[in-house]
């Protein structure tokens, strides 16, 4: 099992205070390697909170998160950063590309934390992915010169740059028009299949959710 969430509880506000609001309540989830799952649910149901926990961007109040059988909740912030860099890829609703960098540079950005410089293989891998998603011609352009769809595809390539085992997508098509959303959905599924990457997507979009292997509804802090 690639990912296991056991008995996860998470809320907002001071636990025990009247302002505390539980979002996730003793939630369990198991994701097998290569699996593609969608998490759907109404706004405010805690989808993004769940994804932040899975992505080691936040810590649960209770429960364990096991990645390849290892509990990552006890990791230090530095260990978590390395973990994210090595094993996870993120795609957000807004592409969050660095406006100061070109498309290619944005794609190469995840290599920097490793502090080793960029190898020929890594460069070739980046070029391969860029060509694959069809934005090779725009590789030297800045995000401000790209369309929304191109930006989001760049963000997907950036997420795959370190060959992660788990790709996390938070409303990846939420900011795109119907056509671009459809294209991105196909791209994510295709890349996941071809590269063998496990995909966890939080989405409102039925088109995306329907293409996943499993679909969970987050309701009352639990996945059903």
């Amino acid at each position, binding site marked *: 099992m690639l990912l296991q969430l056991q008995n996860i509880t998470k809320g907002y506000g001071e636990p025990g205070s009247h302002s505390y609001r539980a979002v996730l309540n003793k939630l369990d989830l198991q994701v097998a390697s290569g699996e593609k799952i969608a998490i759907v649910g109404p706004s405010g149901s805690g989808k993004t909170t769940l994804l932040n926990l899975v*992505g080691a*961007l936040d810590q649960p109040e209770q429960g364990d998160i096991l990645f390849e059988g290892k509990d990552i909740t006890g990791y230090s912030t530095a260990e978590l950063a390395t973990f*994210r860099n090595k094993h996870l890829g993120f795609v957000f609703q807004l592409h969050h590309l660095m406006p*100061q960098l070109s498309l290619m*540079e944005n794609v190469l950005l995840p290599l*920097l*934390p490793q502090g080793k410089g960029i190898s020929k293989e890594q460069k070739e891998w980046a070029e391969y992915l860029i060509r694959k998603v069809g934005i090779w011609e725009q590789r030297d352009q800045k995000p401000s010169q790209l369309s929304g769809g191109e930006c989001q595809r760049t963000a997907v390539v950036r997420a795959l740059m370190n060959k992660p085992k788990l790709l996390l997508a938070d409303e990846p098509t939420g900011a795109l028009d119907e056509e671009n959303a459809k294209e991105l959905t196909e791209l994510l599924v295709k890349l996941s299949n071809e590269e063998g990457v496990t995909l966890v997507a939080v989405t409102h979009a039925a088109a995306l959710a329907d293409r996943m292997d499993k679909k969970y509804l987050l309701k009352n802090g639990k996945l059903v």
Partner: protein
Amino acid sequence: MTKFGYIFKSFCYFLKANLLVAFGVAISAMVLTGSLIIGDSVRYSLEQSAFYRLGETTHLVAVTERYFRQEMASEIEADNPDIEAAPVLLLEGVAVAGGGQQRANRVQVVGVDESFEKIARSEVFSTLQDNEIIISKNLAERLDVVAGDNILVRIKKASLIPLNAPFVSGDEISVSLRAVIKKVVEREEMGRFSLRNSQTAPYNIFLSIERLNRLMEFEGKANHLLVATHLGTNAVLKSVKNCLTPADAGLKIRTIEATGELEISTERVFMEPKVAETLGKLPAAKPLITYFVNGIVRADSVAGTPQIPYSFVSSLGDKQLADNEIILTKWAADDLGVSPGDSIKLKYFEIGPLRKLINCEAGFILKEIVPMNEIWADSTRMPWLPGLSDAGHCREWDAGVPIDLDAIRDKDEKYWNEWRGAPKAYVSLNRALEIWKNRFGSYTAVRYPAATFDMENFRQVFSENVLPSDLGMTVEPIREQGVSAARNGTDFSGLFLGLSFFILVSAIILTVLLFRLNLETRSAEVGVLAALGFKERQVRSIFLLEGLVVALAGGLLGLVFSVLYTSAVFRILNTLWFDIVRTDVLLIKIFPTTLVAGLIISLVVSLGAIYVSIVRYQRRKTAELQKRTESGLKKGWSRALDVAMWISLVVPLVLVLLQLLHPGALDAMLFFLSGGLLLLGFLLGFRKILLKLDRRKTDEIRLSTLSVLNLARNKGRSLTVVILFALGTFLVISTGSNKLDLFANAQDKSSGTGGFLYFAETTMPVLYNLNDREKRAEEGIYEDFTAVQFRKVQGDDASCLNLNRIAQPAILGVDPQKLEGRFSFAALMDGFNSADPWLDLNAPLDDGAIPAIADQTVIQWGLGKKVGDELLYQNEQGDTLRLKLIAGTTPSVFQGYVIISNKHFLENYPTNSGSYIFLIDGSQEKESQIGEELQSVFRDYGWQMEPTAKRLVEFFSVTNTYLSIFLALGALGMILGTIGLAIILARTILERRREIALMQAVGFNTGQLFRLLATEYLMLLVAGVLSGFVTAVVATLPSFVSSNTDASLGTVAIIVALILANGVAWIAGLSWLSLRKKKLALGVREE
């Protein structure tokens, strides 16, 4: 793609925002580096000033109130070829021009010869003719004269004999010289010549040393040797010692033909102990004292019995007489009609301080009557007393004591004509020493058998026994001392860093604020980097390195600004702020190391500020950053801040109420603390209000409350703006309110004036007691006043007017009782709990040191010491004099001096004559009459008098100028703060352009939106300024209610109004600009 590439691209992409941060850094760098440059420049200027005043002089050989041979200079050069020396006769005088219209007191009159060239690097001094003088530029300006003009110089009459020594006439206090100005010299040609460590240039008059000697009735005398050498002080001292001769001690040798003796006497009348002791070591020495007595009478005399008036009486050694025996010459015995066995009485004056005459008598039994021959009627025994020895008749005597001319009989005139000052009586040497030895010395001569006297042996004994220091001669490495005094002087770097404190704080806050605004804009970037697996420290290092590039750019820009800032400050220091520097030698000196240091410090400060911003930012959770949300403080902290708020609000109110209800004086420090605490309370209170606004639950919304609610949108920013304005207003007002007006309680005896009317200083010493009624009548002084007179040993000015670090300030000697209950004390030595420290000045201390008092500001700043510390001097006998500072007065008219009792003063400086400093007390109604009379009577003494309050104000002008600088730089800081506000405002409006566009889209008109925006920021401005204003008024309440300061609510109101007007202008302007239609359309489209 590398980390540095990323940083470079980020820097370029966010260039505009980064340049704003760089601007903040540039201001910090400007202030920091500028302050360091100012410090360096002042130090450099003081050093240059030392070089200007000393020329090539490296060492100074000096004596006080005595003189040595000019030839000593050439002898020293011959003794050691590595030494160059120039003799100088340095006196003080008064210069008058324009028929008395222009006058300069305390002028240095410098007698020089051609050897002065070696020191001055100018040949102009070598060609001075008898009637020519050279004057300094400042004197020419003061007297409004040019080369070729005539001026009158009244020079203090120098005397080889101490002025207050017994039987020395004190009538001739000055000598006049009318001379033509040959040249006016500037600083490059020794125009600033001075041997004192001060940046203030004295008035100088140079003339030929030969001419000055003649004016003083001297021959070849000097009192200073200016030495130029690369050798150390010991080498100079060695040469001085090698060249010291008996003539330099004022010793004269003559042969007494009648007695077959050789006599060594002194130009000083009485021999100082060391010289007397040395002469006593020579074989067959016969010391003698010859004293001028008022009368020789029969012990059983009654009114009408004959008495011999005004006679010389000498001593006999070798136990020829018992201590109660006397020998009379036949002339005297016949005159008195006495025979051996009769009792004889001598009447004489003992000369006390300030020529106080004490009538004394001594009784003897007549042992023998001796014949009137050359052995006994020996007129050579009379010491040389100008005014007495050279008088043609008895009636011409000017003996420095009252002479009753009616008592002088014809037979006395005849005696004078025939026998001059031949002694009429002899007493034993022991008895003579007992009754006539005085602080000026003992023997008047020592005689030796001429046949056996060995001149070579005399010189050798003198050389072996008498050191230069025994004659009060000092050898000082004056150049080294001058440089050290300059380098250790007032630290303008620290001073300006302190004075620029608020600009610095504003600049740092601005830097932090702008950097945080950038971070806020780029918060998503921080979050994404974290999501991509960048470690915290990696993200931090990326932003820090980018910050470093920004700070470096700002720092380098700041270095350029710092030079401009220094130039501006120096320009103002030379004009408006002249009071704190008092020199026209202010040169900007930029050391590369200072620039580097300034840059590094600026970078460290800026990067520190940036680092704190990043760390605080990173504490926020990555997920929050990515979503641009913010969570509040932890509960514990929040509660602690609430408690602190209530304490800060309640405690000061209680303290202020207690103080106001207390009948005594208001404690300024307590009020300042209360004000400061209240400011903290207000700021914490404002934070609390923002939090409440944020949590407010309401079912309705109104336009009027929308602005208030908006304040809580970004609590950090709102609070920063309020803090900036509150702190700025607080500092500016509290500083401005502390400017002192010292005229108000000047009559208070405990004030810095001591309750005295006038402080006066003379160039020539006043040799008598100004309170003596008879003397007053003699001088034509009729106004009713009392004077406290101070003796003075020259030293450096240690007041705040001197920027150099002083080691030996001038010493004043006073009768401590005269100051009882006067002035106040700021510090007492540990274990010293005296009610009135003045009265302890006479008491000796257990460790042998002499108690001394000085102004506390002098002790602390001028001398860099504290009470309990010691000052070291060399006294007249060459011994080390240790003055222990037992107390420090509150700021007073004594700034610059250290005060000891007359008793200790005269023990250490016995030949110091007269008073130079006076405190005048009298009725306030008669103040002007007293002042005018004293000015008139003592005009020729170079009498310089000013009301004590005015003198105090002059010292406080330094403090007030510092406050002005603080105020001006504080105002500059406020402007900077306003710029910060404007930037925040512009940035916030930019961030809110979509919101504004939306509001307009739903029907808000421009006027409503303008009011909304302007009100929001005006509330921050007013909250900040009001908090600062109210708390500053509380902090400085004692100043407002005191008549001692010129703090007024009017001035403060103007300052507040200016701050508000400036803020309002920025807010209104920027709000209006932001509401232009073009921008709104853009906002909507983007939305």
